[in-house]
């Protein structure tokens, strides 16, 4: 799967997250008066929203790589990060909303305050994949994507609320935009901050592409690696490591005497990769290229 298609799927996952979160949150709103206070109510809403978005976005990597283990781990991590991020983000957003609407009489203050709240929520949700991958860089652009998507989605929700106050689907459209825009901005920023793409050329993963959007990418047959090479010969559990230093990508072998070639020549030490290099890990061949 190309990085482009994978990014489209991330956007679709955002839309699905919005579709799923909408009825659940509409249902939760029915029980507002049963809650003892706004704090717990905000936590509950944030937890529900964050878990749903975290589940969908967290499952993305496993879904595109058809890796069951990665799928479950990603979804669970995404749900946990989403749970925490949703609770923090939503409660902070509600705090901002209360803070602003009780301090200004401007007519645009309430929708703007809500949009800021949505942006904070988006920030938390957008960071989930970066936290799962233990990547500060991914977390950073995920957060930025989340803020932008959350802000624009939030503005859309508020606009639709104001424009069509009785419309049932107003919040749904807003949720779709919220989830979808987080996916769009995540994808755009991932592309913008990517140092290149590694494309599998043969075997079971032929055609799959990995974006260099984090500073370390490990390769091996063990499921804990970032690139898991299953079904290839002579691939060790942890075979090689890509490192990004100042926009340059270096490749080094892990352990002794693994089959690691670049342009059919063995790799010794940390080798600086250039675009169009052909990397061979065991029987797996990969092509290193720039983002298109």
């Amino acid at each position, binding site marked *: 799967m190309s990085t482009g298609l994978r990014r489209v799927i991330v956007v679709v996952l955002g839309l699905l997250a919005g*579709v*799923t979160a909408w009825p659940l949150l509409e249902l939760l709103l029915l029980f*507002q008066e049963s809650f003892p206070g706004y704090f717990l109510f905000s936590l509950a809403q944030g937890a529900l929203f964050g878990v749903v978005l975290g589940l969908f976005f967290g499952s993305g990597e496993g*879904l595109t790589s058809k890796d069951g283990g990665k799928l479950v781990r990603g979804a669970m991590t995404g749900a946990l990060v989403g749970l925490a991020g949703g609770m923090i983000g939503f*409660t902070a957003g*509600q705090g901002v909303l209360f803070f602003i609407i009780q301090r200004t*009489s401007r007519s645009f203050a309430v929708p703007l305050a809500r949009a800021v709240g949505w942006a904070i929520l988006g920030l938390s949700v957008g960071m989930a994949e970066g936290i799962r991958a233990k990547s500060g860089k991914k977390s950073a652009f995920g957060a930025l994507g989340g803020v932008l998507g959350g802000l624009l989605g939030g503005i859309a929700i508020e606009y639709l609320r104001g424009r069509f106050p009785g419309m049932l689907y107003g919040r749904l459209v807003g949720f779709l935009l919220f989830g979808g825009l987080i996916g769009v901005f995540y994808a755009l920023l991932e592309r913008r901050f990517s140092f290149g793409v590694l494309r599998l*050329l043969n075997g079971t993963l032929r055609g*799959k592409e990995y974006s260099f959007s984090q500073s370390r990418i490990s390769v091996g047959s063990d499921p804990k690696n970032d690139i898991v090479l299953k079904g290839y010969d002579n691939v060790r559990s942890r075979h090689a490591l890509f490192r990004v230093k100042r926009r340059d990508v270096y490749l080094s072998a892990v352990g002794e005497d693994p089959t690691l070639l670049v342009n059919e020549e063995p790799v010794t030490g940390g080798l600086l990769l250039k675009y169009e290099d052909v990397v061979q890990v065991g029987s797996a061949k990969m092509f290193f290229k720039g983002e298109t």
Partner: protein
Amino acid sequence: MNRNSFTVCLTILLAVLGTVSAFAQTVTIAQVDASPLLLSQTVDLYVSVTDGEGNPIARIAPKNFSVFESSDGEDFVPVSKVTSVVESPHKKEGIQILLLVDNSGSMYDTLWGKPTDDTELMRTTYARNAIRTFIGASFNPEDRIALASFNTSVTVHDENIADPAALNGILKEIRRPEQKEAYTELYHALVESVEPVGSRQGRRVVVVLSDGENYPYYTHAKEAHPKYGTTLSTPEDVVDSYQRDGVTLYAINFGPERDRNLGNIALQTGGNVYDARNEAELAGIYRDIRRKIDGEYRVSYRAGMFASDRTFVKVALRGVRGARMKGEATRFYYSSTMFGIPVDPFPYWILLMIPGAIVIWFLLLVIRYRKFHERAALQVLQTGYGTKVSSNTVVLTQEKTVIGGGERADLTISGRGAPREEEVTIVFDEKGKSGEGGSYTIVGGGPGITVNNQPVTGKRRLSGGDVVNIHGTTIVFEEPDGKA
């Protein structure tokens, strides 16, 4: 009943009524502070209780206060708990005060509305003296007092007068306006002035001193206002902004003319309106405002949960010193949540969207995102600059597959990176040893042609995933699926 008995009864009745009247109370919610709502579910009300003569009533027992809430302003329910009632909370905590002084042209007339050149006789002189008296007499280090003036526009002279001694210098900044600046934009000034004080914590008050009615620039100069354009603020705009920001307006009419709406605006914000005809009365009014604010109660209670954008709160006062139950006041605060209010009735069918989304997610999981090859193929990964290819994928079905620049080639590369007529050929050998289906060999080569970035001269056997580069066009040799 004889005549004497009737007289006695009437006397007693009048005496009782007189007593009741003397003790009649007015309850006003001067400010609602819902800032602790999220973290502690608490709302603070600043409540003013005055007797029939407008004097603050002190030492009211907490049990006399009852608080109710409502989502619609009609059906009120008692709150679960009044957590505290604090008398005179501002003595310790201070007040956020904005003094807003009229500096329109008429403030430079005498108190009776006659033009004068004698500074001592001008209304503005009396007003400035009253401000000095107010700040000097009531200065509390915990207070934060700002001073602004208005005419056609609003000027903030000092956001925090830290020292009463600095006041003279600040007041000198208020100068007689030119004709275009001399209009009385009272409502715009009130709306604009609520912003700086409304964003502060604690008890917030605007005291406006004006000698005339709202006299907008746009209406009377017949041209757009430099800042407000053709927009006119209404009394409703003023009330709405003060109520939303939780700011109380005290209005002082200074001079024989007055704005007919100003009093009502002040009352709706929890404040009051006064008339002053001279400097002594002005100073007395400022002291009275201060006394009223100092005499307020802060009633804190545990708020309820209502699915509405606004929650109405009502305070009722019962049985204070034998008075009839009269004191009751209602205000609202914003309790809007991020998602807003629920849909009523709830459309349960929307829950079906959840399994629908899960089905789509599952389809994304099971769909195969790549083409499976039963035969070997050439896949173009990227073309060189200014170069085109006849096809992105060529399935190798023949014994020989030609890649070249001519039209007869099976994969034609044209443009700047085009090779010569027949550049390379992929030859299939059925008896080859590299797999059950035979082997493929690249034949040809020369400068600008590589396999896995290694030069090709003569011929070379290909294996799955080998990258052939022909003058910048990158092609992958893909074996049939099942071979790694």
